[in-house]
């Protein structure tokens, strides 16, 4: 929060999701200075877009609140939002990162009073809801947003809306002349916690994502269930807004597939088991879930969560990779395939199909400076060749939240080891 000067004893954390925040806070609470870089206008990352966590069915924003409070009270963390690391020069203990900061068009005077939002008319897609809904072009990213500061969508710059926003703000917080800037930050070590992105479901052609409105992804489903989501927590299907009560969950949508992602994304089985709970929660009488799977991977203590769901009569399990999805005249997605346990053919219509899409590391495609060693799936491997750039969370492996936080904590220590050496040398 304060603008301490970054030195070789500073730790640069890239990514403000739960892994990045954890790494930053654990390091800061151990007395290290940290620069935390987030590409979105607010912290929180993907977990903040989830309705509930497995297996406790508690709410991610609960932990986010604590982490934000830790951050607000800690002067050692310097936060840069709307910022992207575009390059890292140097070597272990002595890096210089180039960071591109996109204009927010709103400065620190913002009180989040919301006048600008009321003033503007233009609507833009809301990425926090995976574009299932729209919000004003002057917006607070979400209710938990930190920094608690509005953002102007670049689309309204130069329009009358922009001026409306500016005049609406009594506090001179709207600054339409803000420009993209590039800064350089020194750091002794880097924690790379850029997380994951859902695999592009449209690439899984037989499932018709993009062709059939009522075939959606698991991350989108989280938004439908979320009380703060586009439907206020009601599970309504996209095509006609009808209540979706008979829902199919398709496992390994992209994962464990050499045509898509080679690896198993680990979380999808648990995510779908969790999501059957949403169906039951919203439609206690007539909600119905069907899980199509190859192997249910409810690993370690999660097993009892699996057993609970198995005991639920409203959930059925079919050991089968769905071959293809078609759409019937009512707009219902129809799953075609064979239940491999005893060879039973099925052609089953559902109200909604949820694809449990796999995890693709966000580092994939991004050229991490210094040619970071990554595995065949693009996850950063622990390798001396990476110098003092340490992968954390889902940038390093397909992990659930708990393991991601462990990984981030470990990465923080590795970074601390480097900056401690630097400190010793400089002392």
């Amino acid at each position, binding site marked *: 929060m304060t603008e301490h000067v970054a030195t070789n004893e500073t730790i640069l954390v890239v990514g403000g999701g739960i892994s990045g925040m954890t790494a930053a806070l654990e390091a800061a609470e151990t007395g290290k200075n940290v620069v935390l870089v987030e590409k979105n206008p607010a912290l929180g990352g993907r977990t903040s877009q989830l309705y509930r966590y497995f297996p406790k069915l508690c709410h991610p924003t609960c932990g986010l609140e604590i982490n934000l409070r830790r951050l607000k009270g800690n002067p050692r963390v310097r936060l840069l939002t709307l910022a992207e690391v575009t390059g890292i020069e140097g070597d272990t203990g002595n890096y210089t990162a180039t960071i591109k900061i996109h204009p927010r068009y709103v400065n620190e005077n913002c009180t989040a009073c919301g006048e600008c939002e009321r003033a503007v008319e233009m609507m833009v897609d809301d990425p926090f809801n995976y574009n299932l809904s729209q919000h004003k072009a002057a917006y607070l990213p979400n209710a938990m947003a930190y920094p*608690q500061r509005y953002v102007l969508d670049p689309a309204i710059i130069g329009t009358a809306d922009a001026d409306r926003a500016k005049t609406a703000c009594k506090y001179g917080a709207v600054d339409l002349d803000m420009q993209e800037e590039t800064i350089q930050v020194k750091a002794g070590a880097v924690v790379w916690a850029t997380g994951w992105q859902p695999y592009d479901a449209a690439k899984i052609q037989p499932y018709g994502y993009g062709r059939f409105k009522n075939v959606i992804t698991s991350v989108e489903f989280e938004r439908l269930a979320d009380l703060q989501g586009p439907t206020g927590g009601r599970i309504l299907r996209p095509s006609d807004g009808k209540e979706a009560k008979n829902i199919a969950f398709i496992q390994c949508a992209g994962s464990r597939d050499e045509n898509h992602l*080679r690896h198993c994304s680990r979380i999808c089985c648990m995510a779908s088991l969790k999501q059957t709970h949403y169906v039951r929660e919203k439609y206690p009488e007539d909600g119905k879930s069907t899980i199509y799977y190859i192997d249910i991977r*409810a690993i370690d203590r999660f*097993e009892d969560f699996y057993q609970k769901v198995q005991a639920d009569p409203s959930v059925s399990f079919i050991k089968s990779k769905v071959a293809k999805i078609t759409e019937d005249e009512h707009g219902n997605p129809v799953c075609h395939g064979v239940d491999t346990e005893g060879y039973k053919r099925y052609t089953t219509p559902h109200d909604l199909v949820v694809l449990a899409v796999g995890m693709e590391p966000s580092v994939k495609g991004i050229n991490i400076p210094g040619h970071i060693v990554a595995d065949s799936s693009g996850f950063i491997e622990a390798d001396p060749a990476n110098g003092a750039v340490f992968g954390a969370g889902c940038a390093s492996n397909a992990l659930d939240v708990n393991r991601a936080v462990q990984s981030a904590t470990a990465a923080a220590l590795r970074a601390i080891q480097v900056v401690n050496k630097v400190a010793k040398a400089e002392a």
Partner: protein
Amino acid sequence: MADIKVAAYICKGCGLGERLDTDALVKVAQKDGKVPLAKSHDFLCNAEGVAMIRNDIANEGVTHIMIGACSRRAKTEAFYFPENAVARANLREGVIWIRPDTDEARETTQEMAEDYIRMGCAEVKAMTAPGGNPVTGSSKTLLVVGGGVTGMTTAIEASKTGYPVVLVEKTGALGGWASKLYKRVPVHEPYKSPADTGVGELVSQVLGDSNIKVYLNATIAKTDGAPGRFIVDIATESGATHTEDIGAIVQASGFTLYDMNKLPELGGGKSPNVVDQAGLEALAIAAAAGDGVIRRPSDGQPVKSVVFVQCAGQRDPTGTHLAYCSGYCCNTSIKQAMYFKDANPAVDTTIIYTDLRTPGNGEDFYRSAQEKGVNFTKGKVVEVVPNGATSTVKFHDLILGDTSAAMADVDLVVLATGQVPNSGVNIEVPAAPAEAGTVEVKPISILNLTYRQGPDVPQLKQGFTDSHFICFPYETRRTGIYTAGPVRRPMDIAQAREDATGAALKAIQALENAELGRAAHPRSGDLSFPKVRLEGCTQCKRCTVECPFGAIDEDEKRFPVVNESRCRRCGTCMGACPVRVISFENYSINTVGAQIKAVDIPDEFAEKPRILILACENDAYPALDMAGMNRIEYSAYVRTIPIRCLGSLNTIWITDALNAGYDGVMLMGCKSGDEYQCHFVKGSELGRTRLSKIDDTLKTLNLESERVRDLEVAITDIKRLPEMINKYAAELVAVGPSPFKGF
């Protein structure tokens, strides 16, 4: 106490100026709040407004600050005065944003704001800025219990970070389970073949590190003290005891394989040719030492066919065996099957599984095994029948639907039995009295803590010492003591090493903060800590029993002894204390009590009921805030006070409120029970236990039970809370005004 100067600042921004009579608020602060200095400002959180406050601190000698503006969760950068006592009166999210902007609402809205100003002034006056603990321990040494991969990794990583380590291993050698492995599952590309365990490398690193002191054949005889100042007695084989000063502890006591003798139906203990995964590793090591051929234990004949039985005694819903999945066994069996295939492709290896669980790149390892000709069969093994040197494995083939499938003449059967944590004594289960004639097997304590609440770290229902938090896996209930590796969750070597590294950081962080007197998670950095006015104490032991973190011991006279560096500042002790002698500098019976009393209670004819809300600051209060941000209206009759945790709820607050003429009290705390969401683990549960007795109080006051309402709240209840509040307000109207008004 030191002379204080309180200043009240009232903001007119964000519509406060338009919606409220801020001049009146200033007067209220002066008259009722009795503050010498009260000002209003058009835009308090901007540079100029903050400068004004700083200036008053510097030049007017202001020590205590009451800010009447937005929520304490907002504008934290601007209103950051770590040196001062600060109270925030939430006029924005708490008043104007939850009230309609109408003329009829104006009066009640103003009353609401004025009360919050009164409350803020009263609170801040009752506070002092925490001075921190003058007596803190400063040991920088880590104690690591357990010399397996996890323990060794912790030691090495801590040492690398510059901290001395004492490592205690109960056996005569380092290495633990991993040292009994022939090879390990690969952790780097390509994930195709078993890799060296690397244990030798770790052992020599530990032994070669002058910063790591190793005790072999040693156990922990006694652990006394607190983070930063643990005093640990280490008992060695020779009977000698060594005492070490320790800053923080990592418990890496590992696991024991589930006993296959409990699985006779699977041939466990029935034949030397039925082994568990450890048994197979031993055979593989023996083979590697010899001609490389894995041989049948019974007669030393080369193994030509081997069957791996997955989930042996695991994933058992009946409760007879392990209910959980150990996670690593699928990869391990794949690895062990490769031992055979890599040596001789002609050996038949079959893995019988129900769900194959190879997450992440394990999928490559699985594919590689198939390429090598390992046969995978989806089925449930019903029985393993040893007959002579071979066995018959009877199973239900789930794909071919064959309930009586069988594999005959199997030379070797490997049972994947899974991990049982070595977590020591389960302190929450009272040791059952030994039945006559039976020999009582007492679990051996790992840490032998001298804590009032027992010798070991609390356990979860399956015996693991995991934290039950998803976002905060390291937050155990014993500050400065972290568990790592399979003792807290079944895991493989790769995860254990990651876990160990994370635990090392937490331990280092704990001892560093202990020295500075700073609290650990979740109130990280909090310098306040509970102080006990012993002269008032009745030695009732509530505090020592209830503290969720075992922070409070008892001295020989049964007086509580607070170990502040074990304390998490939840205030449960304060809530528990019947004589109210426990308090924090910035949070006490009084800081809350004073606010309750500061509220102006209209008489019963005004028909303006008053409802007190005591809301958990972690979940309920943010939810109310967000209701405000969403402009969701709720009753103008509520007055909300954030509390650290429902566990810090002292029933005196309720009695005071009711005596003062409040018509009702609403308590908002997090979910308790097995799936608790309380950030202090047991806080909300203990608070509720206390509440369960409130009915007696109500009876003695002869008040209706409706006057007190407990609400389980999640941070997402943004729409629900206003509904509940309004519902409750309506109910109270039906119940009628409190008889205590106007006294």
